[in-house]
């Protein structure tokens, strides 16, 4: 009996493809609906938000008014929050990606005492959510007098175990030992080899970890909530939540619900932009040609 592959013309292939499309469509709707709700809600007036169908636009298009309120409320504090978020997440992401690359390189390319144990610790740390560690970290940082400073948010975020794990696997594959040895034969020191030969080959991996860390920090809520208590130091997540709680307690006037929605919409835009910008680093194949596979 011969083995016949599924060709694009076979009935089975077509059936499978329909099924796949159906499943993916469901998944798309599932992920896109909340986002769509945010988009429509940001264009509504506060009355319409509660009186019209949630998943479609109201007759009264209020996006510009909502944006204006958002950026002027409390003397334009929303802009301050955005700047804070951008600052915390870019510094944290760059730092986390660099440390993850250093650590991943060491794990992939060197043998040293305690390597297995340390690798096990990193793998274990991947499974512990940061949330679980926030309170002990708060106690630690408050003893150091660092709470209510940007460092309180940035320092804990520099530790990014999934990034270490990713870079370890990536580097192990992307950089051959012979390449490093060629650098040694050429007389280059270990850091020189890393920075002038290896690092540029690692850009796709580095970019991946960078964006993952960036998004994780951009969306981080619990850590800044615990570490910071001055409103002008808040990132968007904490700031919006505060606006929201003002809205449900009714003190700041009911119009705040749409402002929170508009704020949520605005806060997604930079993340999408970051994805689009980083895309060009995923070209891959940078290592091709140097080392024969």
């Amino acid at each position, binding site marked *: 009996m011969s083995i016949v592959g599924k060709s694009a013309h076979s009935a089975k292939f077509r059936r499978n493809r329909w099924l796949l499309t159906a499943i993916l469509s469901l998944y798309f709707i599932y992920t896109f609906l909340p986002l769509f709700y945010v988009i429509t809600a940001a264009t509504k007036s506060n009355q319409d938000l509660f009186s019209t169908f949630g998943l479609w636009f109201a007759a009264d298009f209020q996006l510009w008014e909502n944006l204006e309120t958002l950026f002027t409320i409390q003397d334009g504090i929303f802009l301050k929050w955005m700047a804070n978020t951008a600052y915390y997440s870019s510094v944290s992401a760059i730092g986390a990606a660099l440390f993850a690359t250093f650590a991943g390189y060491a794990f992939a390319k060197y043998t040293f005492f305690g390597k297995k144990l340390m690798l096990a610790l990193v793998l274990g740390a991947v499974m512990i959510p940061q949330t679980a560690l926030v309170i002990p970290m708060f106690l630690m940082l408050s003893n150091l007098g660092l709470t209510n400073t940007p460092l309180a948010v940035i320092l804990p975020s520099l530790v990014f175990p999934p990034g270490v794990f990713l870079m370890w696997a990536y580097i192990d594959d992307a950089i051959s030992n*012979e390449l490093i*040895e060629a650098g040694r*034969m*050429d*007389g280059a020191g270990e850091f020189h080899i890393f920075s002038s030969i290896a690092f540029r080959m690692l850009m796709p991996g580095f970019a991946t970890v960078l964006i993952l860390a960036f998004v994780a920090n951009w969306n981080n809520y619990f850590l800044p909530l615990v570490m910071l208590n001055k409103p002008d130091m808040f990132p968007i997540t904490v700031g919006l939540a505060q606006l929201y709680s003002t809205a449900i307690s009714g003190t700041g006037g009911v119009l705040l619900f749409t402002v929170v929605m508009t704020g949520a919409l605005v806060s997604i835009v930079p993340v999408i932009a970051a994805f689009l910008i980083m895309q060009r680093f995923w070209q891959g194949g940078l290592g091709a*040609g*140097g*080392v*024969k596979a």
Partner: protein
Amino acid sequence: MAVIELRDIRKAFGAVEVIGRANLTIDDGAFVIFVGPSGSGKSTLLRLVAGLEDATAGQILIDGADVTHLGPAERQLSMVFQSYALYPTKTVRQNMSFGLEVARLPKAEIKARVDGVADILRLGDYLDRKPRALSGGQRQRVAIGRAIVREPVAFLFDEPLSNLDAALRVEMRIEIAKLHQRLGATMIYVTHDQVEAMTLADQIVVLDKGAIQQVGTPMELYQRPANLFVAQFIGSPKMNVLAVRPDGSALVFADDSRADFGMPVPPSLAHIGFRPEEVQLLPAGQGHLQGKVEVVERLGSDTFVHVGLGALGIITSRMPGNVLTISQGQPVGLGLTMTQLHPFSRDGIRLS
């Protein structure tokens, strides 16, 4: 220009000894080839010389100076890797100049050296390309160029041609031979390939299980292999070996057939070896052994005849040209010449 000496070099990875007490002197300007089966320690020995591995014990001397504890660059050696190991993000020029920049040579000198070497290796047109835009042979030449520009005291090659196709391999082999003549530098070269070893080497070092089995010129190894391992490793098709026991001036084979040469036979003789060209095919009934032709391989230039000897196994005979008078299934006699036999003891050590 360098004399490289290994003294009692040992290398173990954890508890596993990979190189055991290697002693070797490589003369200035010599082309030395390490051969041996896979896992015999060729690469490890080369990397020990390069300084990419630390010796567990022993000393390495270059021109009399102890370099055992020096790093790779301080030993002033260059290495060409099997995978080429070119820096993929750098251009050909940057690949070749990297080592010189690390050594902080003046810019003008770097340029002059790279241009000079690019000229020798016909890489002038590719200097601004990245490795991925080069063919296998060109990449190999860049890797060699990168080794040459540093003007090392010796070159180390680890199977540099094994990723090339057969035709290119022959071409690059000849280029490397020319390069050796031109530079006159000491070269150590690891290969699996018999032909590379026989044609390029001044001296061949045969390794097996981490031990040096024999060191000699290609012809010494071919004509006087020191033991059964070398005898069967060097030469293609490989040497025929038959177990024998001496009986006066006669040899008794394992199937109790006898061959009397009328000459004294060493009493400790346990194996005889003979190259495929050292056995004569005769009409059935003549010669020292009787057999039947099992397979005939015709290469045009040579004919390999594999003769089944029953319980003794199969031996190979090589005849020049395309021999039409031999066909499969034909009974034949085999003629040996006592003076051409390679005698080995029970432990496989050459006698006489």
